[in-house]
C-alpha cells in the first residue's frame, strides 16, 4: 500500500473531474428532461412524438456506445476535435434527459387530474396551475426518483474513462498500471465512489424529509 501514497493525490484530483462532469451533465440533463416532460404532457402531437422517440432512443441503446459515438462521430462529421469532457457531458446529459423526462412526466401525471380541473374551473391559467398546484404535489414523487437518477449518473460517470477522460476511474487505472498494484489503486477508487454516493444519498434523504412536512 505504501507505494501508492505518492499517487493518491493524483487519484483524488479525479474527484474534481468526476464532479465537474456529473454536475454539468446533471444540470443539462435536468433541463432537457423538463423540456421533454412538458412536450410529453402538452397538447402538441408533434412535440410529443419527438419527445417519445427521443426517450425511446436514448433508453434503448447502450450509454457507453452513445458516449463513444459522440466522441468519435462528431469530429468525423464536423471536423471539431471535441474535448473528452465535453463529449462526456453531451452524451450523458442527452441520455440523462431521457430518464429525467420520464421521472417528471410520471410525477406530474401521478397528481389527480381533478386537481387540474379544479384549477381550470377557478380560471387559473395552465402554467400557474402547473407551478402552484400540480408541481408542489408532484415533487414528492419526482424528488426521490430524481435522486436515484443522480446517484446512477455519478456511478455511471466512470464510463467516461473509456474515452480517456481523467476521472477517478481512469486515474486509478493509470496508477494501477504504473505501480502494478491493482488491488490498492482500484480499492481507493471504490472507496471514493462509495463515499460520494453516500453523501448524495444522505442529502437526498434530508431533502425528502423536508418535503414531506405537509402530509
Amino acid at each position, binding site marked *: 500500500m505504501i507505494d501508492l501514497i505518492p499517487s493518491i493525490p493524483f487519484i483524488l484530483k479525479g474527484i474534481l473531474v468526476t464532479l465537474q462532469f456529473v454536475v454539468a451533465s446533471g444540470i443539462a440533463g435536468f433541463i432537457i428532461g423538463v423540456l421533454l416532460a412538458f412536450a410529453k404532457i402538452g397538447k402538441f402531437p408533434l412535440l410529443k412524438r419527438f419527445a417519445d422517440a427521443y426517450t425511446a432512443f436514448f433508453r434503448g441503446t447502450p450509454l457507453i456506445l452513445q458516449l463513444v459515438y459522440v466522441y468519435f462521430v462528431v469530429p468525423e462529421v464536423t471536423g471539431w476535435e471535441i474535448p473528452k469532457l465535453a463529449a462526456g457531458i453531451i452524451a450523458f446529459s442527452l441520455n440523462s434527459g431521457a430518464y429525467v423526462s420520464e421521472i417528471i412526466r410520471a410525477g406530474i401525471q401521478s397528481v*389527480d387530474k*381533478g*386537481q387540474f*380541473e*379544479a*384549477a*381550470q*374551473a*377557478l*380560471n*387559473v*391559467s395552465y402554467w*400557474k396551475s402547473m407551478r*402552484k*398546484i400540480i408541481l*408542489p*404535489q408532484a415533487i414528492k414523487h419526482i424528488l426521490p426518483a430524481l435522486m436515484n437518477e443522480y446517484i446512477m449518473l455519478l456511478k455511471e460517470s466512470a464510463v467516461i474513462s473509456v474515452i480517456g477522460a481523467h476521472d477517478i476511474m481512469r486515474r486509478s487505472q493509470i496508477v494501477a498500471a504504473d505501480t502494478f498494484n491493482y488491488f490498492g489503486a482500484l480499492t481507493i477508487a471504490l472507496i471514493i465512489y462509495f463515499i460520494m454516493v453516500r453523501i448524495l444519498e444522505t442529502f437526498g434523504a434530508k431533502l425528502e424529509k423536508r418535503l414531506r412536512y*405537509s*402530509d
Partner: protein
Amino acid sequence: MINVNNLTKQFGDNQVLTDITTEVKKGDVVAVIGPSGSGKSTFLRCINGLEEATKGEIIVDDITLTEKTLAQVREKTGMVFQHFHLFPHLKVIDNITFAPIETKGVKKADAEKHAKKLLETVGLSDKANTYPNQLSGGQKQRVAIARSLAMEPEIMLFDEPTSALDPEMVKEVLDVMKQLAQSGMTMVVVTHEMGFAREVADRILFLDEGAVVEETTPHAFFHHPETERAQSFLEKVL
C-alpha cells in the same frame, strides 16, 4: 343566463350528448337527473369548457363560449365536483384565497377577509387553518363550495356534490346549497338526491342516453312523468 343550443358531444365514436337545447334563466335552479352514463357530467363540463363541444353552442351571459372567451365564461361560473378536488398542500383558507389572489389580483388581506366570511356561511369558521386531509367529506365539500364562491361567480355548477359522502353528511352540504339557492344564485345541479331536486329545483332536466328526454317542473316530473324512460327511472330511484 345560460343558453345551450344544439349541443352535441362525441368522445371518438362514442356520441355522449345529442343535440341538447335548453336555457337556464338568472336565478333558476335546474336539477339534472338521469341514469349513470347518460351524459350529465359531460353536459355540465361543456358549460364551463372543461369539455369542448363537438357541435352546437354554449352562451353564458351573452358570451358565446370559444377558446378565446373561455376565461370570461369561467369567471362567471363556479364548479363543485363530486370528489371535491381541494388542493391538499394548501390550508383551507389558502384553498379559498388562491384563485382570487392569483387570477384577479385581489390583495391577500382582502381575500382572507372574504374567505372567512364564506367559511362562516358554510359553517366552518374554525377550520381556516387546517389542511383538507383533516376534514370530513361533508366539510371538504363545503370548503369546495366556499372556494368556488370566492370567485364571485354568477352561476354555480354542481356535479353530484353529495354522491361521495357518507349519508350522515349529505344534509349539511345540501343545506348550504339550499341557502345558496335561496340567495338567488343561478344553479345547475347534477344530482341523485331526489328530495333536493323536488324541494329546491325550479326545473328538472331529465337526460337519458345523451338526450333531454323531459324538461319540466319538479311537480310534473315526479308526479306525472310523461315518458316511459322517466317513469322507469323514477321507479328505480324512488
